[in-house]
């Protein structure tokens, strides 16, 4: 089946997409592949491997997210008041030199609470998404590569987990698991989030794996006698990882927001530990909103920019590596 024309710079088709694949391959890989290699309006050169191809926006977002993570990591070493120290003489104050972002209804320093709060929020979101990706991702690669029965079983399993009402699951875990140590509360949430995230990531990565598994370089590796493990790790993984990574970033953003929702229900990390969700939840109460609107503003803004940053990064990665949410 002749085809082929790797359209060079200047050919109008390239204005759209790097038409690097033959229709024959397209037809085989089907719709998923279509999604995999259609893209944002590419430059006429259509290359994806350029250095700095992620653009300024990405790096600004990454810088912001990085700063957030760094602050969270360094919280114990920063010259911050304890996030739980209550000073009843300075309740509900606006920003001042002593309290850069003001204080809350118990006279605690908002800046300190936000930075410390982001610690647990980030641990929950990042760890659960990373672990979810390890579990869901490996299952996805196995399912996508082996196909057939393995795929059918894993796929159905992911459906079961997805369809199971997450609220029931979370409340059940909440009721079931009473960690003897308060420090484990955090990990309880991580486990819940992981269970919820894993099947989602499974579906994303399965779609990418399916698309990649049919590519000829995988067939080539097989014909060279590569073991399955080697094919999965050397050939498929590097190709599904960027896509998965972009979803992971968006997943982390989502997890930060969901942590907030759980805090709204009193299901997030136990008191008195601040999390971003706990902070918003505390501050968005009507009595606090009236007494101290800025206390709600700061954590909301913080979440907002963190989530925007993560979304931007994920989105940039996605458009650079040509993946669609639609492959879920």
């Amino acid at each position, binding site marked *: 089946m*002749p085809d082929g024309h*790797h359209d060079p*710079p*200047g*050919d109008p088709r390239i*204005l759209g997409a790097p038409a690097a694949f033959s229709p024959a391959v397209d037809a085989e890989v089907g719709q998923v592949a279509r999604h995999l290699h259609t893209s944002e309006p590419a*430059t*006429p*050169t*259509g290359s994806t491997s350029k250095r700095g191809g992620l653009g300024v926006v990405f790096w600004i977002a990454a810088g912001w997210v990085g700063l957030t993570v760094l602050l969270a990591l360094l919280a114990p070493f920063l010259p911050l008041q304890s996030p739980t120290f209550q000073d009843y003489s300075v309740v509900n104050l606006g920003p001042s030199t002593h309290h850069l972002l003001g204080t809350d209804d118990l006279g605690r320093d908002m800046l300190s609470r936000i930075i410390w709060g982001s610690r647990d929020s980030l641990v929950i979101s990042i760890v659960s998404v990373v672990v979810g990706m390890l579990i869901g991702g490996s299952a996805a690669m196995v399912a996508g590569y082996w196909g057939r029965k393995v795929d059918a079983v894993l796929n159905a399993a992911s459906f079961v987990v997805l369809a199971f009402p997450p609220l029931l699951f979370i409340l059940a875990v909440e009721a079931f698991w009473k960690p003897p140590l308060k420090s484990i509360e955090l990990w309880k949430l991580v486990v819940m989030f992981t269970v919820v995230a894993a099947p989602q990531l499974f579906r994303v990565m399965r779609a990418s794996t399916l698309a990649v598994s049919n590519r000829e370089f995988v067939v080539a590796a097989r014909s060279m006698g590569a073991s399955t493990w080697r094919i999965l790790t050397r050939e498929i993984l590097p190709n599904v990882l960027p896509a998965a990574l972009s979803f992971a970033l968006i997943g982390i953003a989502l997890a930060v927001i969901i942590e907030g929702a759980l805090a709204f229900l009193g299901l997030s990390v136990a008191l008195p530990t601040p999390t971003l969700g706990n902070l918003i939840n505390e501050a968005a109460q009507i009595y606090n909103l009236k007494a101290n609107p800025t206390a709600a503003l700061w954590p909301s803004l913080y979440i907002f920019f963190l989530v925007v940053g993560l979304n931007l990064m994920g989105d940039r990665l996605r458009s650079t590596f040509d993946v669609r949410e639609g492959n879920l």
Partner: protein
Amino acid sequence: MSPKADGQLRFPDVADLNGPILEVENLTTHFQSDRGLVRAVDGVSFTLDRGRTLGVVGESGSGKTVLSRSVMGLLQGNRVVKGGTVRYAGHEISALSPAELRQVWAVQIAMVFQDPMTALNPVVRIGRQVTEGLRIRLGLDRKAATETAVALLESVGIPSPAARLRNYPHELSGGMRQRVMIAIALACGPKLLLADEPTTGLDVTVQAQILDLLGEQQQERSMAMILVTHDLGVVANRTDEIAVMYAGKIVEKAPTTELFAHTRMPYTEALLRSIPRLTDPSHMRLRAIPGRPPDLVNPPAGCRFAPRCPYVQEQCRQAEPPLRNAGPGHQFACWFPVGSSEGEQALAYNLHHKVPAALAFTGTRADNALAAVPPEPTPTGDGEVAS
């Protein structure tokens, strides 16, 4: 000049036309890219008489596809830089607004695309894809449009055409899809058909059928046609005239027989010789063209083919050769043309000095040292590269 009346463009009947149906003058199409201006079509001129067929031949990246789309005015957008004029039936269509151009398309000029798999909307039934032009452009009602569509599909050799209208493109074979596309192009009775690699995606057996079909339809409708292809074999027997493009420029243009009989441009010759022939014995070494087409952002100075040319001399690298006449209708752009004494001397000189391109041209074994041609790193990727 056809006057515009109440926003409607009017074109003279082709039969009454005195001049050529298409005149392209110094057409340029550049694209703005991150790396700079991509000179995809760079000063191309030609004319086409009604009912005649022009073949446009070149490698991928030579700008031939852009040329056909530029002629039609299909390339729009803020990153397209256009220049030159295109006159259709005496009317300067390159100056028309997009809305006006819509009146030209399909009814006056139509296009057959390279890959029917991608050029037919995969989620729209054949029926609508054929009839929508008829209904919207020609104002036929549903019934009339359907009847016309059936007739059209029948005329392009599709069996049980009425049933096919309900099909989606993927339900047809490649050949059938290409026939559908031709039917769509012909639907509104264009006077000029641009066929952009109409058979590239097809099997050889089907390719012949499609080319025959195009020929028949052209005869019947006395259309003019531009046949764009990378395969000289395709145009050899089906065109009146051939233009060879290289790096955005026409480097040789001649009536078909003349071109094959008296090839002037080394590039044309190299193209011809690199094709394996059935008539050649097995295991015959092919004469490959070394290197790759130039980067259209920074084309080489002088003749753009110089880096790959077996005849190349210092002059070629300095000065760009103009299009010169070599007999009736035959133009070429070369300082050391094939068949001339300068050319022969140049080649002999190069062979003597073991210029790799010349060695490759002879097909000698040594040229695997093509390796020889230092692999210029391709900064961005696409574009045929040698090594």
